[in-house]
């Protein structure tokens, strides 16, 4: 499979009064056509800023993409002019955001908002765009689409608004859909609806997806490949089955252990990851996870581990990953 997207050494920083926030610290990865990649991390891990940087949606200033290349379909998005990027954004690469209430314009009807992209990117006239907007709303499962087109966002529920966002995202048949925590603000039963919908649409349209989330549960049923981020670095990348069977990075292992699982008996006590994520203005030398890591050795606090391939399909940034694997082999993930 050819790579649809290749990110090389992407670095994004924010220049604030308190200092330079190192949000994304040199990440590289590839995404193939039609593939679903999940990027997992907690708040401040750089997962959102990382993908926002891809389509240059970083507010500048204070933000700045200080280094890196983003090859999309044979072109480096970082080298394009603003106008050229705008042609790609919303058209070839679409985004859906976490909060469907704040990402829709409250004073425009749903129809107007969907039709805007169709008229702008595909050059449709008003009646064509309206027809297509109805089709799109039907496709994302909104009942009575033709009559709901003239409603305003506040007349839709949270789940329906997220469906509208997805309809807008898919309106120009993108090759890549970036979904930034699209189900975090929704209830579990609605989350299940949205995940089902996106997977169905993916089979229909065949776009690649980058799904950003903090929830390792959602990822398991959705992604083919997973990238785990911590403090602006990729700490682990693996095929989804491999990751859950045998995480290599102590942080991934910690995340899996700290959440109770519904299908397992009630555990006696949760195993939290001690401490706090590091301050991105003042990152510790060495591995950023070292202060919280139970596998920490002297080397970890001095020298940051590079992200190295451990097999053709996976990479990990940890000096002691072999110890993690040995522990899992002996005692399992869930102790």
């Amino acid at each position, binding site marked *: 499979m050819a790579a649809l997207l290749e990110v090389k050494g992407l670095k994004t920083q924010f220049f604030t009064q308190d200092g330079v926030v190192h949000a994304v610290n040199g990440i590289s990865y590839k995404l193939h056509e039609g593939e679903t990649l999940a990027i997992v991390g907690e708040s401040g891990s750089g997962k959102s800023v990382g993908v926002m940087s891809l389509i240059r949606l970083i507010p500048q200033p204070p933000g700045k993409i200080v280094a890196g290349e983003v090859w999309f379909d044979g072109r480096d998005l970082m080298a394009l002019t603003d106008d050229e990027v705008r042609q790609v954004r919303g058209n070839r690469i679409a985004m859906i955001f976490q909060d469907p209430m704040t990402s829709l314009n409250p004073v425009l009807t749903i129809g107007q908002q969907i039709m805007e992209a169709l008229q702008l990117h595909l050059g449709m006239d008003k009646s064509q765009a309206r027809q297509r907007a109805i089709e799109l709303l039907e496709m994302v499962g909104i009942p009575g689409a033709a009559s709901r087109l003239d409603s305003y966002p506040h007349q839709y529920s949270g789940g329906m608004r997220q469906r509208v966002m997805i309809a807008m995202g898919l309106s120009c048949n993108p090759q890549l859909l970036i979904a930034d925590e699209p189900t975090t603000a929704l209830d579990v039963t609605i989350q299940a609806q949205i995940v089902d919908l996106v997977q169905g649409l993916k089979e229909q349209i065949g776009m690649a997806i980058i799904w950003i989330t*903090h929830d390792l549960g959602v990822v398991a049923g959705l992604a083919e490949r997973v990238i785990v981020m911590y403090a602006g670095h990729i700490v682990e990348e693996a095929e989804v089955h491999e990751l859950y069977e045998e995480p290599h990075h102590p942080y991934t292992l*910690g995340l899996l252990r700290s959440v*109770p699982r*519904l299908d397992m008996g009630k555990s006696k006590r949760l195993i939290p990851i001690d401490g*706090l994520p590091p301050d991105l203005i003042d990152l510790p030398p060495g591995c950023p996870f070292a202060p919280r890591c139970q596998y920490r050795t002297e080397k970890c606090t001095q020298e940051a581990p590079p992200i190295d391939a451990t097999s053709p399909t996976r990479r990990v940034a940890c000096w002691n990953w072999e110890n993690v694997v040995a522990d899992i082999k002996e005692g399992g993930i869930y102790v």
Partner: protein
Amino acid sequence: MSSENGSKKDVLLEVKGLKMYFPITKGIIIQRKIADIKAVDGVSFSIKHGETLGLVGESGCGKSTTGRAILQLYRPTAGSVLFEGVELTEMKGETLRRQRREMQMIFQDPYASLNPRLTVGNIVGEPLEVHNLAKGKERQERVQELLKLVGLNPYFVNRYPHEFSGGQRQRIGIARSLAVNPKFIVADEPISALDVSIQAQIVNLLEDLQSSLGLTYLFIAHDLSMVRHISDRIAVMYLGKLVELTDHIALYEEPLHPYTQALLSAVPIPDPYIEEKRQRIVLEGDVPSPTNPPSGCNFRTRCPRAMDICAEKDPEWKNMGTPENEHWVACHLY
């Protein structure tokens, strides 16, 4: 009802037929009531000493309102709330204020629930002063003791909330609620604003405090896996009503209500092999508006097993378990 048969002495809190309606008014000068939002519509349960009752449901189902109405932060429209046998809904003024020492709340949003202009010492110490429990040096010592108890450095007393992370702020909120030595705590989504790696820290803290101080919790949340972890018994709520209430094992092993079954099946499991094979019950549509709930059973508009009777009659709240292992459910299937 057979819940009455349980030894009455054990029960700390008993809620009977609790209703909390919020009026919708029209007009500016003369306000006429045109409808009610039935946020909580006849909820009954009891909590025993030292127990954790989990209350789960989706947003807007009335779980937070239930918690607040129990503490009399809202005055209930109808129903009774007995705390150690004393009726709270009739209490007023000073009596109610004194009663609040026994029952405290932990809030969801650790950013909004702490006054940004007060130091940590003042935030945690304020309840001590309000209830005339400690002053001056004694207060200072008690505050430091409380901070230690929740795992914060006692030297933090002079710092402000913005200097802390979300997890640390939640610890400050917990210290504040413990200041008056309460017996009962309503924890309203105490971990949902926190990162995954921090959630476990707070849950462990709440469990430790429960065993060392003998606390009783009403734990309100939407995360079913976390609720099961912390709760002894779990109540599931939908559109202002309880649909099922039983112990944590029965609820997960043999859920009776179709809504509980759907909720459980919607929770993703962090294992791709399981997720591939899993049969999900995907509910259609959204939760109806609480101003105009469906006739009969609330859930029938989304229920995959709805029958004719569901539209006509409100299902009875009945015990399908034994008197020892109660399993309450409100559904015409049973």
